[in-house]
């Protein structure tokens, strides 16, 4: 969930109410956001080890966590607006699009690298230092969230009065792009900029998005002034400042829907500072096929939802006027339709999270108050049932524990070495499922045997009095072509006895007992063990376990090299069998 930092005093001034921290925390809780932390600018700077925190203040900052799909809450402007509407201190604003004065022409080559572009103009805007910072912050937040770190969407904002339309969105070989990038003193080519920014802690993570492409995206004005080289950097020429009056916003994207969401969010949030609040100028987007589209549209959608459905899904029984009031508190206008049986809900362009009537129903529930909903117990009548393999596992666990063995709980993931070299096996004999992106060697494979985990458990408990008797009943994972995913779990029992003498007879006794309680030990044809060789076990001291006509596992004295590979220094015996055969 994304987090935003808001100055407490500015927030309360904007809402028009002063809360205690507790009261504001409660309001957040009810509204579905979370007052995560109360801190100060200075503390944040110190923690993030930023330099020059002398000019930062001790003013209280709220860190607020907002839902990942609520892009309209990613800045103070949007959060304040939503809370004020929720508190019925203002009506939801109406967003208007003004006719266009600008055109953005998309060239066909852009399809090779970043095919979509949109634009908008915020006309006659007045920034304060605070609102200007919020404007920059929101762009960062949108890059991070809806933009998926600029891969899907990147935003550029410019002082429109420094450039001249029409604008063209092109894709050029990087060496043919040359401009003075933001905060640079001289011009660099596209390639040089990539080299320059490969040392920039902030920008270097975005470079791979276009690196290696034959063409880089670039936006020009009619005089070939570079506005930006998305998704990396804007031009210095058109940089905006506190004094910028007319803002030109460009959006480039690989996902058109997300581009629209980002643009709608940015303009609906900051058009409140335009001289005609909540308006923005649209821009004509000329696509490579010659079609011209007007963006942004700030489209209001309509959704009819039956009152009965709203009440039923939540478990309340509220009259129409209350439902409409709840809707209005969540920024939805509504009209009664179907002879008062349904509401036609108008969804504002700020609410990209509304996909389905269920999203509207949730908002009604939030306005009603989740904790005001009467709790009921479902009448669903069903019979409890255990998964057979889990039931059998629990019965076997109990029997083995009754034999004086202690249960271990080890990881299902381990290193390649754990299941191969340390067990004196080759990786290709293991049928192991291999992980593509492990952060450490501990998570290279899913275990194919329970033995390494138990030996590691003993190694971590060498100071305990011997003998150690431990066991685990759990799943290993083996590749299996016959399943839809190509791998399958197998439930196993593994037990280890560790002492000054190997105690093969102890492990053998355990196996005999387990076979006895599984009712297969009475007949030699049902259960027997037979000498075999296995590199994990000591020669002459390993046997295959046969039950119900199948080989189900092995038991034996652990090979001394395996003992030392797991940092142990005394003999051990072990048994490991597949128990799914007994289902």
């Amino acid at each position, binding site marked *: 969930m994304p987090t935003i930092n808001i100055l407490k005093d500015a927030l309360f001034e904007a809402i028009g109410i002063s809360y205690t921290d507790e009261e504001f925390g409660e309001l957040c809780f009810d509204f579905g956001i979370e007052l995560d932390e109360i801190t100060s600018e200075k503390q944040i700077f110190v923690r993030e080890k930023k330099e020059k925190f002398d000019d930062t203040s001790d003013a209280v900052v709220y860190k607020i966590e907002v839902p990942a799909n609520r892009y309209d809450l990613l800045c103070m402007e949007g959060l304040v607006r939503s809370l004020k509407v929720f508190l019925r201190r203002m009506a939801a604003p109406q967003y208007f699009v003004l006719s266009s004065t600008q055109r953005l022409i998309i060239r066909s080559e852009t399809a090779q690298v970043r095919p979509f572009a949109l634009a908008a103009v915020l006309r006659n805007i007045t920034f304060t230092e605070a609102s200007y910072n919020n404007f920059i912050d929101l762009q960062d937040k949108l890059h991070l969230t809806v933009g*998926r770190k600029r891969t899907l969407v990147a935003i550029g904002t410019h002082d429109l009065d420094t450039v001249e339309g029409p604008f063209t969105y092109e894709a050029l070989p990087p060496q043919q792009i040359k401009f003075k990038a933001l905060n640079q003193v001289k011009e660099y080519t596209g390639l040089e900029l990539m080299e320059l920014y490969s040392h920039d802690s902030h920008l270097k993570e975005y470079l791979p998005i276009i690196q290696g492409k034959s063409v880089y995206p670039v936006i020009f004005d009619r005089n070939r002034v570079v506005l930006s080289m998305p998704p990396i950097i804007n031009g210095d020429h058109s940089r905006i400042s506190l004094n910028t009056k007319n803002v030109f916003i460009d959006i480039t994207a690989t996902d058109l829907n997300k581009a629209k969401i980002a643009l709608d969010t940015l303009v609906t949030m900051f058009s409140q500072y335009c001289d005609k609040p909540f308006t923005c100028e649209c821009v004509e987007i000329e696509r490579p096929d010659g079609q011209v589209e007007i963006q942004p549209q700030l489209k209001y959608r309509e959704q009819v939802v039956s009152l009965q459905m709203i009440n039923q899904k939540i478990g309340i029984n509220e009259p129409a006027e209350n439902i409409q009031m709840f809707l209005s508190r969540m920024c939805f206008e509504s009209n009664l339709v179907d002879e008062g049986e349904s509401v036609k809900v108008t969804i504002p362009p700020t609410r990209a999270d509304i*996909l389905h009537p269920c999203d509207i129903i*949730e908002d009604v529930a939030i306005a009603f108050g989740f904790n005001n909903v009467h709790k009921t117990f479902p009448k669903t009548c069903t019979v409890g049932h255990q998964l057979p393999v889990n039931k059998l596992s629990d019965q076997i666990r109990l029997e083995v524990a009754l034999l004086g063995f202690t249960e271990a709980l080890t990881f299902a993931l381990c290193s390649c070495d754990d299941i191969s070299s340390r067990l004196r096996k080759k990786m290709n004999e293991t049928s192991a499922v291999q992980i593509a992106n492990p952060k450490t060697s501990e998570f290279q494979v899913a275990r194919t045997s329970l033995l390494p985990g138990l030996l590691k*458990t003993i190694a971590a408990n060498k100071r305990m009095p011997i003998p150690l008797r431990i066991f685990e009943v759990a*799943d290993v994972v083996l590749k299996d072509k016959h399943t*839809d995913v*190509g791998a399958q779990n197998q439930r196993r029992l593994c037990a280890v006895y560790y002492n000054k003498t190997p105690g093969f007879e102890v492990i053998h006794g355990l196996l005999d007992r387990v076979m006895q309680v599984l009712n297969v030990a009475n007949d030699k044809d049902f259960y027997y063990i037979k000498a075999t060789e296995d590199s994990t076990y000591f020669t002459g001291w390993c046997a295959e376990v046969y039950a119900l006509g199948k080989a189900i596992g092995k038991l034996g004295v652990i090979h001394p090299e395996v003992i030392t590979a797991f940092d142990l220094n005394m003999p051990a015996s072990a048994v490991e069998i597949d128990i799914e055969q007994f289902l």
Partner: protein
Amino acid sequence: LVTTEGLAWTMADSLSEQILKTLAEGKKFNTYEYASELGVDHQLVVGAVKRLTSLEDVIQAKQEQFERWHLLDEGNEIVEKGSHEARVYYAVDITNGTPKSLLLTSSPFAKIGISKALSAGWIKMERISSEDVIMYRKVSSIDDKIQKLLIEVKNGNINALSSDQLKELKKRNLIEKIVINSYMVQPGHEFSTTVSKLKAVLTAEMIQSGTWKSMKFKQCNFDALGTPLNCGHFHPLMKVRSEIRQIFLEMGFEEMPTNNYIESSFWNFDALFQPQQHPARDAHDTFFLKDPELSTQFPLDYLKKVKAVHQTGGYGSIGYCYDWKLEEAQKNILRTHTTAVSARMLYKLGQQEQFTPVKYFSIDRVFRNETLDATHLAEFHQIEGLIADYDLTLGDLMGVLHTFFSKAMGITQLRFKPTYNPYTEPSMEVFSYHEGLKKWVEIGNSGVFRPEMLLPMGLPENVSVIAWGLSLERPTMIKYGLTNIRELVGHKVNLEMVYNNPLCRLDK
């Protein structure tokens, strides 16, 4: 008993009796002094006292250490017979004197006696020939100080001697200093003069012969611990798992087959209406597989519906409006939640000819490629419950959560916070009031599965599925007061913690 050992026992027994008798007279004593009073070896008294202290608080014995000056053999002889010089003096004939050669045979110490007596001025000598001299008494009576001093030492009146005198006696090898380990003995709380006759344990022989009837037995020492037994143990986390599993079963839930750690992205994400660009699908959060890399078998009809609902919506939804890719859905992963199994189960349910209400649960491992810390591991156990039935409400979800958490944790104070999950709407975080921390803490997540997830599966439109989940480790750590998850899960667990772990009683 006629063995020497037996004899020693008998002697010790009579000594014990004597000690008890002495104590019964209300005296307390030091064993060293007591031994010298009785004229027995101190070690015998100490042995008897030790035997008595092994009985339950019959006597109390406190160790005391002190120094004693002790007469050496030569010193003892002086006490008995007088100092060497005195013996020489008395051996000299009172009128005629005695030749030195005769005197030298009067005692083994005569030579030193003569020189001491001469220097003390008690005797004198006269040479009568070149071979011999005659010794005469010089004074009519003597005072044998050495003997007197040694008698004082023997009687323990060490203070009667000056330090020079002590030094002198020591120099002459007549006395030495020794350290005495002794005990101060007094009656204990359970004092009795008859204890020495009690038997320690009942034996098979006593029962068979019937001799126990005439015997008295000492009482068991209830302050001592019992013997630690060799026993097996269940793992603490598995004990909590068993209890929670039991609660689901009591509530009529059926266990889902979650024994498949490997899952395709399709069932783990796409089937749950989780868009393909969702951050959870990043390599930062999810373990992808190198081998087997891709899943190839999907129910095609259903897959087409999932693709459509992501791309263009349907079932009343506008969808996510993006280009859904099969290759993304095919990617195999270690499942990030057991909800992947819920999706498979609900799909199966949707394929039934006639829908039947179900309650499902599971407790099993899930995997996250997260940064590890004291409370996060790459794998943990997820507890999940869901109910699918006609017309379930948000109130029903709250009601079932109340029942579950009051059974599972004895928690009755619950609050619900609106939240966002990609596959549930409404979504609620579950908070409970923590008495220790004096604040509300999140204990689980819940919600109503989205229609975009359920309807492509073929479930009827008015069927709702309410669900909730939580980790098994977190409540277990809180229950057992653990701060580091590695103390609970994995091979670094301390087996002693496992051995000593109490029963899991979630309602206590």
